[in-house]
């Protein structure tokens, strides 16, 4: 059967280097992955098409790219599923990274962010003769993060990185979690302090794109949320993100719903004039659209029920920690 692939091409050596779309028609087998089709194109139709690929079994992390607009591994994506109900399967290089050529993205910024989290085990004290003793379940839990193959699919589709290229990003933060969560690593305090700064864990907007994109089920966003909990537990609360979280919880527990004015004041601090002024345009726009929160905040009728819920959750969390 024939498949149609529309591939975004880019030749840096062209007289005017501009990306353009090229359509390829290729005979495929039902079991083909998108990578199988791209390799066939490269071998039979167009040797100039450049892409990275190696293992063909989702372990080397070379072939992350956007297929039908979303980042994934080409070797793990069935062509037939992508082609269903569409005139053509679109293939583009990974996003949030410069393109070197065709489907080859420049991963230099990716690796420099990984490097920024000091991604190596930092134990303290004398090395034991044998292995470090570590609980089996803690290690089994870490396998779920360690399974990250550094393909960059999460970074490609991260919505924060589109706005702020300084954000450490889901891959580097998930890597950081792998050390914070490791009972052998003794640098948690330094790590969590560094991660609590600008461009770190508090800059994620929880849009969930990285969880969707990850071909290995790492769920980077969940790891970032776990890092936030750990950072707050470790006492790194003197930052906007922590205060926002605390205020959010406190207000909702108290009155059963959010008081957005108080949330802003508690997050930034009443005396923080520049931040307060910075919020003024948001307030104005809300006012003009009739979405301004009421100045006098009232609890919901049965706020005690919400407080009970909070108590239950707190008790459950205590149980989890034990």
């Amino acid at each position, binding site marked *: 059967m024939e498949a149609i692939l529309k591939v975004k091409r880019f030749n840096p050596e062209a007289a005017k280097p501009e990306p353009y779309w090229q359509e390829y028609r290729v005979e495929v087998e039902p*079991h083909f*992955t998108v990578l199988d089709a791209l390799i066939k194109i490269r071998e*039979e139709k167009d040797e100039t098409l450049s892409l990275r690929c*190696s293992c063909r*079994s989702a372990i080397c992390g070379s072939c992350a790219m956007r297929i039908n607009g979303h980042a994934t591994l080409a070797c793990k994506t069935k062509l037939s599923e992508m082609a269903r109900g569409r005139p053509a399967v679109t293939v583009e290089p990974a996003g949030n990274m410069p393109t070197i050529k065709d489907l080859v993205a420049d991963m230099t910024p990716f690796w420099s962010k990984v490097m920024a989290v000091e991604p190596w085990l930092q134990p303290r004290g004398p090395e034991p003769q044998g292995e470090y003793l570590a609980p089996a379940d803690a290690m089994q839990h870490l396998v779920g993060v360690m399974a990250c*193959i550094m393909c960059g699919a999460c970074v490609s589709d991260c919505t924060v990185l589109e706005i702020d290229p300084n954000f450490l990003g889901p891959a580097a933060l998930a890597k950081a979690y792998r050390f914070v969560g490791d009972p052998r690593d003794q640098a948690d305090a330094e790590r969590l302090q560094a991660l609590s700064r600008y461009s770190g864990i508090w800059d994620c907007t929880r849009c969930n794109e990285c969880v969707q994109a990850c071909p290995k089920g790492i769920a980077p966003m969940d790891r970032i949320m776990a890092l936030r909990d750990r950072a707050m537990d470790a006492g790194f609360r003197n930052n906007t993100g922590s205060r926002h979280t605390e205020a959010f919880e406190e207000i909702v527990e108290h009155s059963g719903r959010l008081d957005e004015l108080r949330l802003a004041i508690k997050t930034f601090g009443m005396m923080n004039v520049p931040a307060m002024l910075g919020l003024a345009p948001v307030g104005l726009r809300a006012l003009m659209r009739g979405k301004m929160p009421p100045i006098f905040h009232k609890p919901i009728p049965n706020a005690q029920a919400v407080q009970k819920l909070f108590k239950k959750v707190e008790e459950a969390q205590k149980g989890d920690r034990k």
Partner: protein
Amino acid sequence: MLECDVLVIGAGLAGMRAALAAHTNGAKVIMVSKVHPVRSHSNAAQGGINAALTDRGDSWEDHAFDTVKGSDYLGDQDAIEVMCSEAGREIIQMEHWGVIFSRDEEGHLGTRTFGGQRRARTFFVADMTGQAILHVMYEQLMKSGVQSLEEWFVTDLIVADGECRGCVAMEIRSGTLQVIRAKTVVLATGGLGRVFEPSTNALICTGDGIALAYKAGVPLMDMEMVQFHPTTLKGSGVLITEGARAEGGYLLNKDGDRFMLKYAPSMKELASRDVVSRCEQTEINEGRGVDGCVLLDLRHLGEKTIKERLIQIYEIGRDLTGIDITKEPIPIRPGMHYQMGGIKTDVDGRAWDVKGQWGGIRNLFAAGECACVSVHGGNRLGANSLLDTVVFGRRSGEAASQMAKDMKPTEVSEEKWLKSSEDKLRSLLAREANGDSVAKIRWDLGTSMVEHLGVFREEEGMLATKAKVEDLKRRYEKVAVQDKGKMFNTALIFGIELGYMLDCAETVVLGAIERKESRGAHHRLDYPQRDDGNWMKHILVHETPEGPRLSYQPVTVTRWQPQERKY
């Protein structure tokens, strides 16, 4: 020109381990790799890494015996003793560096039983052990600050006066060539799997270092010994880990019989790989297969075990074949997996003979799958390949840096070497299209190798492949590369790699035709018995101006005399 004491070519486990060892030993190291280090094929080692830890009541001598037996008595026993006795130390080193090995209830490292071994001594991380170790090794490399040239492709080894003095490499991104001058060079470029089609190997496994060394005059040893893994997917040849059988998986024929009970009553599915592969092929050839395959049945292991310990296999089944392995058996067959042979080295990775008997090139070292120490002999045991990379990677790095300490910088004419490499690339790019293609030649090579140098071999077929390789070499001289650009020209790289693959293929075929017996993975229908009287020796292939020449080296036997091999 870039300069260093120790140049490491290849950045899989053996390469990175060598680079770290040399760096720790005070050498200035440059490591160059055609892919980013974490994309290396060491990733694909799923099942584990062997070591006999004495605090668990195991002994390295037992591990060594299993390895000797597994090798069908072709492995050099002095080298096997080194590997097995140093294994425990390496495992602990990896653990201290951060590898998240699976644990037992008390928090100690846990083990599983792998094929061809009488004890559980395989340490593992679910079914992604290679990946787990590779990424940790790269973490240590980032920490060390070793200069790592990532996505640089080596086009030539610089050899003069019988010694290796560096390489010429192309930065793939820009297409520019650079000379890298070194006092000593470690080759750790991995295997040659893509010479066969299909193969479990990644597309990058094209025998680059093996061919570079061979062309430079280093003999290759045991090249006829090619491992066919018992469980690979039809079509793509993607690997299903031996861990699937280690966890208790069954092999079934079309009648639902566990046929291994008949062939290897004691070790069953966990007999050594060459044995299991032959049994499967026999079932298929005698009409008891299913569509050219047999079945791997994991259903009885239960969903929890499968999803905790065989995660990747669960995903591969789901994504590549549409089979839920918790509910259905998966069709598998033997597939090309590993090259036991390679660049002949001693136990410190030296690719030259200090006694001068077998030649080689001074200052050149090799480790990992591209090397042949020989610890695997006729058949490698599962989970001994990761061990090989870390033990001999470290030893090569140590020896190469030690040697460099006493050396002055070598003399290299940058201009001359750049020009000769440039000319080579230019002539490849200048050829005009003739209807042939690199991909076609590679396909013809791979399919012919699998057809006649597969699980079962015989003279007639191998001679046909020999003629085929010669013909393909002639086609290769004329084939054109269509991409004429400089930047990230993957077509050009495939073109050069194909040359490496053809050189490797030639030596595999020659070794296999020469060895007139059946031993380990080399099974001949025309010589079905092992013949210790005539063939308990290594075959070496040397490149000479008159063509390939063969020579022989005795197998080193320390304490284990050959016995009949039963599982």
